[in-house]
């Protein structure tokens, strides 16, 4: 397990460092809670409404498009490393794949889903 052990060590030390910083902050600082501090910060004005509200559907669209293009990226990686062996055939098949997804991007673009974010 030549790769597992150093990775595990790295995760352990990075996690330990982050945990130590959190613990230091938690236990060393003072704790003086006043009522003003307990209100959510809205640049000085008193907060109106509950802490969470429903927000725009644009974020959902961006996340969906991200998934789609992320899957495309994931398909491109194995192709990139063996693409020379596949020759022109490989290039053409990947070009078809990319063009279909580029068409998806153009459709999304024209429909205005990429606006005003």
């Amino acid at each position, binding site marked *: 397990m030549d790769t597992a052990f150093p990775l595990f060590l790295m995760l352990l030390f990075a996690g330990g460092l982050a945990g130590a910083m959190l613990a230091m902050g938690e236990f060393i600082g003072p704790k003086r809670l006043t009522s003003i501090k307990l209100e959510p910060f809205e640049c000085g004005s008193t907060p109106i409404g509950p802490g*969470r*509200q*429903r*927000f*725009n*559907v*644009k*974020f*959902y*669209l961006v*996340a*969906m*498009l*991200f*998934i*789609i293009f*992320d*899957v*495309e990226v*994931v*398909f491109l*990686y*194995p*192709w990139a*490393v*063996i693409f020379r*062996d*596949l020759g022109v055939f*490989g290039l053409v*098949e*990947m070009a*078809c*794949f990319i063009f*279909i*997804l580029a*068409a*998806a*991007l153009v*459709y*999304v673009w024209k*429909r*205005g*889903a990429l606006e005003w974010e």
Partner: protein
Amino acid sequence: MAAVAFYLVSAVAIACAALVIFQPNVVYSALFLIGTLLALAGLFLLLNAQFIAIVHIIVYVGAIMVLFLFVIMLLDLGRDPAGTEQLPYQRGLGIGLGVLFLAELALMVSFGGGLAGAPEGPLPAAFGYTEVLGRMLFTTYLFPFEATSILLFVAAIGAVVLGKRRG
């Protein structure tokens, strides 16, 4: 050694999956689902399928769970909103279907557990590596690969149609 690692990772996966269902806070459920997916990636690594493991993390944990979290936060599902609604005969149906599923699993395991098209003998050493997977994907399985692009295209259109009702 490998058996110990397998049982450990499987235990983590099962525990996280159980916690997804049984604990009330929705955001915590999403985080436990992330834990389950990471444990599954660990199982893939134990099976020497490194490319699949890391792609599993990139797509599921890095993309799909982000979408889940966005949706949870957009819809403000802080507490357990579906705790009051129940389908008719929900408990009976649930237990019945669970027992059926368990019986099915037991039947499959008792028949040897192997898949019909699995190759015999040991796998080549570089089996889970990117090059081997790529070679198979772009020659033998070319049609499913291109079909995937159509599937993604349809998903993009579907997302925009659902999202932009007024446009």
